C-alpha cells in the first residue's frame, strides 16, 4: 500500500537546460514532484516533452540545471559523481527500452552482477523467480526472447531491493502479449517488495495500473490524476 505521507524522493522546482551551440533547449522547466513510498506512478507525455530527462534526474543519472532532488534529506543535485554512483548502487533500479543485458553473462550472472555489490540483495534465483524466469537461469541473452530479456533486466534492477524502480518505456520494443508479462512483473515487484516505482510509457492504457498518472508537456507537469482502483496488466484494454 502506497504511503502518501512519506515521500521517497522529492524534486523541487527543477529545470534542465541543454545548451547545444547557439540553441538552448529547456527539457524541464520548473518541475516539482514527489515519489511516495510504495506507490506506482506512470509518466505520460508527447515525445520530447522531457519524461526521460526527469526520470534520469530522479535516478541520479543526470543532474538538474537548477532545483534540488532530495532523498533522505540528501540533495542529489549537489552530490559528487561518486556519491551519485553509490546512490544508484544502493537505492535505484533502472529498466530501459533496450534491455542492456551483458551479452557475455547468463541471466543468473547478469543479476548476480548487481547482487554482488548490493547491501541487502535477494539471491539471483529469487529475483528471477519474481519475474517467472526460474527456468532460464543459465541462458545467455542471445538465447532469450525480447520479453524474457526485459524481465531479466527487471530482475536485475530489483534484485538489490531498491527503494526506487525507474522504468523508461519498458515495453517499447515488445508486442502486446509480452508487454503484459513485463508490466505484470513490474506490478508484482511494486506490490510485493513495496518499491516506489515510476514508469514512462506512450501507452495511456497502462495508466490504469498506477496509483497516479503524471502528464508531462513541454518540460512541465501538465496534470496529475489519481486512480482509485488499480487494475492488473491483463485486465487492461491494450
Amino acid at each position, binding site marked *: 500500500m502506497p504511503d502518501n505521507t512519506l515521500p521517497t524522493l522529492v524534486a523541487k522546482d527543477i529545470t534542465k537546460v541543454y545548451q547545444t551551440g547557439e540553441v538552448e533547449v529547456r527539457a524541464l522547466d520548473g518541475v516539482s514532484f514527489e515519489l511516495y513510498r510504495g506507490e506506482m506512478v506512470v509518466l505520460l507525455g508527447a515525445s520530447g516533452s522531457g519524461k*526521460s530527462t526527469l526520470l*534520469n534526474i530522479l535516478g541520479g*543519472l*543526470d543532474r538538474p540545471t537548477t532545483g534540488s532532488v532530495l532523498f533522505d534529506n540528501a540533495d542529489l543535485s549537489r552530490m559528487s*559523481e*561518486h556519491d551519485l*554512483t*553509490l546512490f*544508484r*548502487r*544502493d537505492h*535505484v533500479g*533502472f529498466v*530501459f527500452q*533496450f534491455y*542492456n*543485458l*551483458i*551479452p*557475455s*553473462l*547468463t541471466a543468473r*550472472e547478469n543479476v*548476480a*552482477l*548487481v547482487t*554482488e*555489490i*548490493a547491501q541487502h540483495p535477494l539471491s539471483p534465483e529469487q529475483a528471477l523467480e519474481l519475474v517467472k524466469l526460474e527456468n532460464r537461469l*543459465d541462458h*545467455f*541473452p*542471445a538465447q532469450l526472447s525480447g520479453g524474457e530479456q526485459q524481465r531479466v533486466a527487471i530482475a*536485475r534492477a530489483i534484485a*538489490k531491493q531498491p527503494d526506487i524502480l525507474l522504468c523508461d518505456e519498458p515495453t517499447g520494443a515488445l508486442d502486446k502479449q509480452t508487454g503484459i508479462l513485463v508490466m505484470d512483473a513490474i506490478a508484482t515487484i511494486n506490490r510485493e517488495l513495496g518499491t516506489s516505482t515510476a514508469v514512462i510509457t506512450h501507452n495511456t492504457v497502462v495508466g490504469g495500473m498506477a496509483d497516479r498518472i503524471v502528464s508531462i508537456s513541454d518540460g512541465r507537469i501538465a496534470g496529475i490524476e489519481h486512480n482509485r482502483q488499480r487494475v492488473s496488466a491483463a485486465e487492461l484494454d491494450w
Partner: protein
Amino acid sequence: MAIVHFSPLDKKRWRDLVKLRGQVLAVALVIASGIATLVMSLTTIEALEDTTDTYYQRYRFADVFAGLTRAPDFLTHRIAELDGVMSVETRISQYVTLDVPDFNEPVTGRLLSIPEHQQPTLNQLVLRKGRWISGRAEDEVIVSENFADAHQLDIGDNLAAILQGSKRSLTVVGIALCPEFIYALGPGALLPDDQRFGILWMSREVLASAFDLKDAFNDVALSLHHGADARAVMTELDTLLKPYGGISAIPRSEQMSNWFIQNEIAQQKSMAMVLPVIFISVAIFLANMVLSRLIATERTEIGLLKAFGYSGTQIAWHYVRMMLVIGATGTLIGCAVGVLFGHYNIDMYAQMFRFPVLIFQPGVHNYVLAVLAGVLASVLGALGAVTRAATLPPAQAMAPPSPPAYRHSIISSGALQRKLDQSTRIAIRQIERWPLRSIMTSTGIGFSVALVIMTFQWDDALNHMARVYFEQAQRQDVVVGMSQPRAIHAVQDFTHLPGVLRAEPMRYISADLSVGNVTHRGTLTAIQQHASLQPIYDDANDITVAVPESGLVIAHRLARKLNVKVGDIITVNVLSGRRPTLSLTVTAMIETYIGMPAYVNLAYINRLLMEAPNMNFVNLLIDEAQQPQLFSELKQTPIVAAITIKSAAQDAFQRTLVDHLMVFVSMFSLLAAMLGFGVAYNSTRIALSERGRELATLRVLGFTRGEISYVLLGEVMLLILAGLGLGCALGYGLVWFIITLFDTELFRIPYLIEPSTYGKAVVIIFIATLLSAALVRRRVDKLDLIRVLKTRE
C-alpha cells in the same frame, strides 16, 4: 584552374580517419617503427659501403697483402710483372715497444715505412695535421690520429721507441689516417685500444738501417687490375715469396681492418632483415583489427551504400584507400625517423672509425623499398576486413548484427564458477569469444617484450663473454710478445723481473688448416702440458681441458668449418720457418665464444717442427703493486716487441662495445615500447568501442568508474599479462634466432639471458601498456551514459 571534387565517400573517409585518430596514429606509428628500422639499416649500410668505398678508392687501399722475412728490392719488378697486378708497394713493417711520455704502461707500435717526400703508391695517408717526413732528420715520424688523440700528442712532441734493442727518440711531424687501419688492432688484441697500440710511419731509409733491411723489404701490398683473379695472383705471389720467408698473402676481404668493417655491415644487414619484419607483421595485425571494428560499426552504412548501387569493389577500394592513408602516414614518419637514425648511426660510425670522408646520400631505392613495405603492410592489413565488407549482402548488412553467441566453458562456468566475480567472468568470456584476436593481441605484446629482451641480451652476452674470456679463460695479467722466437728457457729471464709471480711460455704459429678442399687461415696456440695462465678453456661448459700429449684441440666452430670430428686428421701448413706440412689428429673439441682457436702441446709441436724448443710469447702473472717497475723494465727489454695488458684490453672491450651498445639498446627499447603501446592502445580502444553500451549499463547499475575500468581493462590486462609471459618465451626464441644469424668466425654470442633482462623487458612493456590503458581510462570516465543507453546498437 582545376576544381577539386571530393566525393561523399572521400569526405566520409576523412571524417572516419579524424574520428579514429588515436587508433589510426597507433597503427601508423607501428608501421613507422618498422619502416624506420628498415630505412635506418638500409641507409646505414649504404652509407657505410659508400663511405668506405670512396675512402678506399681515394687513398688507394690495396687489394692483396703479404708479409715475409726479408726480400731484396729487385723482387719488386718480378711481383709487378705477375698477371693482373696493377701496382706494387713494398715496405718495411715492424712491431716495437714505445715509451710515451706521461704514460706508464708499455705501448706497442707498428712502424711502417713510407717514401720520403711523397705518398706511397698504395695505402696512402690522409695527413690531418703537420707535414710529410722530410728525409733530412732521422727521427721524424707521422703517427695515426687515433693514437695521437689517445695520448694528446701534437706536432713537435716526442716519444721513444726501442728499435733493435736501442732506444730512439722520435719527433711527431705529422698526424694521419689511413684506410688500412680504420680498425687498428694490436697483436693478439680483440678490439682497438688506441692508448696501447698505434701506427707510426717513418722513412724507409731510416727503418731499413734500423732493422738491417737495406735494399730489402718485409711487407708488400698490391693493387690489381679490375677483374683480375685475386686467388691466382696470391698463389703466384706466395710461390715468389716463399724463399724469402713469405707468410701467405691475404686478400682485402681478409685484411683485419676491412674485415671488421665488412662484419659490421653484415650485422646491419641481418638487423635489416629481422626487425622490420616483426614490426610490420604486428602493424598488419593492428590495421586489420582497427578496420574490422570500423567495418563492424559501419555495417548499416555499407548496406545503404550497396542499396544505393555502390559495388563491392567500390566499397573495398574505399577502405583500402583509407588504410593506404594510414600506411602512407606511417611510411612518411618511418622514412623521416629512419633517415634521421641512419644519419645518427653513420655519424657514430664516422666518429668511431674516423672516416675522413662521409658519404650519406641515401639512394632512391631505400625509399622505394620503404614505400613498398608500407603499401604491403597496408594492403595486407586491410585485406581480411575489406573482403568481408565487400562481400556483405546489403540486406544482411542493414540488419543489426546477431548478438555474439557466448558459451559456457570450463574456465568461466565450471569448477571455478564460484570463485569468479561477474566482472572477471565478463573478461574471460570476452577472450573466449574472440580467441584469434586475443591471441594476436597477446602475441603483439609478446613481440614487443621479445624485442626488448633481444636488445638487453646483447649487454648480458657481452658482459658474460668478457667475464669468461678475460677472467676464466685467460688467467695471465700480461702477455709479452717477442720480436723473434726464443728458446723456452728464456722464460726464466722473465721470472726474475720485478713483480712477476709466474711466467709461462707460449707460441703462436700461423698456419693454414685444411681438410679436403676447405682451408682455414689461422693460428695454432702452443702451450705447455700444464699451462695454467693460458689454459685450454671451454667457454660454454666452463671447464678447463687438459693439454694433450699430441694432436689438436680445436673449437667446435672450426670443426664445423672443416667438417671434422674427434679422431679426424687435419693437414696443417705452417706459414713460417721452413714451412713444413704436418698431419695432426683432432683429440678434443671445445666451445668458444671468441675466435676459432686450435691448441697444441708446445713440446710436441716444437718436436714436429724440428726446431729447438721455441716460444714467441710469454704469459705473466704479476703482483699489481710492482706493475710500474715491471713495465719500465719491460720497456727497456730489447726482445720485447709487444705487450698486452689484460685489464686494459678488458677496459677497451667495455668502452668500445658496451658503450656503443647502450645507444642501440635505448633506440630499440623505445621502438619496442611504441609497439607495445600501439597494440595495447588499439585493443583497449576497440574493446571500449564495442562495449561502450555494456559499460554504460554497469554504470547505471551502480558500478563506479574504477569498477567498470576493471571490466574493460581486465580483459586487456589478462591478455597483456599473457603477452608478457609469452614475450619471455618469444624473447628466448628470438635471441636464439639472432645468435644463430650472428654466428661469425670472429665470435659466437653466448646464449645467455639474465633474469633481470626478462624483468626489465616486462617492466618496460608493462609501463607502455599501462600508459595506453590510462589514456583509454580517460575516455571511460567521459562515457555519456544517457546517450549510449538511449540508442539501439
